[in-house]
C-alpha cells in the first residue's frame, strides 16, 4: 500500500514569491490534514479536510495561505506571497474516517524562504 505522497520534498524560494505544495493521501482516506512544523516543535494544524470540505481552518493564515481539495482526494496548499517566517516543514497526513483514527504522515516538504 502506498503511503502519503508529497511533493516537492524541498523548496527554496525568495520572499514574496508564491509556492505550492501537493499531497496525495492514502487511497480511501477521507480525512486529510496539513500541518506546519517548525524546528524543535510539534506539528501545528493548518487545515483539515473531510472529503472535499474544509472542516477546520482556524489556524490557516488566510491572508497568504490557501488550500484546496477539489475532488476529495489530493490537495494543494499554497502560500502567496511567502515570508521569511514561513520557512518550516509542511506535513500532510491522512486518516480513515473510522476507528482507529491514527494519522499517516507524508515525508513533508521543507520550505526555505530567503
Amino acid at each position: 500500500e502506498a503511503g502519503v505522497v508529497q511533493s516537492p520534498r524541498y523548496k527554496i524560494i525568495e520572499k514574496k514569491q508564491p509556492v505550492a505544495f501537493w499531497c496525495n493521501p492514502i487511497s480511501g482516506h477521507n480525512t486529510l490534514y496539513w500541518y506546519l512544523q517548525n524546528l524543535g516543535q510539534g506539528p501545528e494544524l493548518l487545515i483539515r479536510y473531510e472529503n472535499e470540505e474544509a472542516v477546520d481552518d482556524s489556524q490557516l493564515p488566510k491572508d497568504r495561505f490557501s488550500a484546496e481539495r477539489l475532488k476529495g482526494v489530493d490537495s494543494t496548499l499554497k502560500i502567496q506571497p511567502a515570508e521569511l517566517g514561513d520557512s518550516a516543514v509542511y506535513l500532510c497526513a491522512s486518516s480513515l474516517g473510522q476507528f482507529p483514527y491514527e494519522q499517516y504522515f507524508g515525508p513533508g516538504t521543507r520550505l526555505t524562504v530567503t
Partner: protein
Amino acid sequence: EDKVVQSPLSLVVHEGDTVTLNCSYEVTNFRSLLWYKQEKKAPTFLFMLTSSGIEKKSGRLSSILDKKELFSILNITATQTGDSAIYLCAGKVSGTYKYIFGTGTRLKVLA
C-alpha cells in the same frame, strides 16, 4: 485552550539505558492519546491509547495512559542508537479528527 505538554524536551542516554518520556494533556472532550516517532522524515505511528491503565507494548517500547491524572508515559527499555528520534504525543478530540500535538521529546542514544 487545548494543550499537550511533553517532558523532558531533550534527553541524552547511553545504549542499554531505560528512558521514560512524559506527556500531559488538557484536551476538551479527550478521546485518545497517540505516540509517534519522528526521525528525519515524517512521524510514524507507535501507539494509540484510549483506556486508562492498560499498557500497550511493542518490543522494547511500552506506553500507558492515566485519564484521571491526564498524562501518559512512553517507556523504552534497553535503548539502542536507532531509538534516537523525536517522540511526539498527540491528544485526539472526541467526535472529530482533530489532534493536538506536543512539542516532542528529542531523545539521543549514545553508543
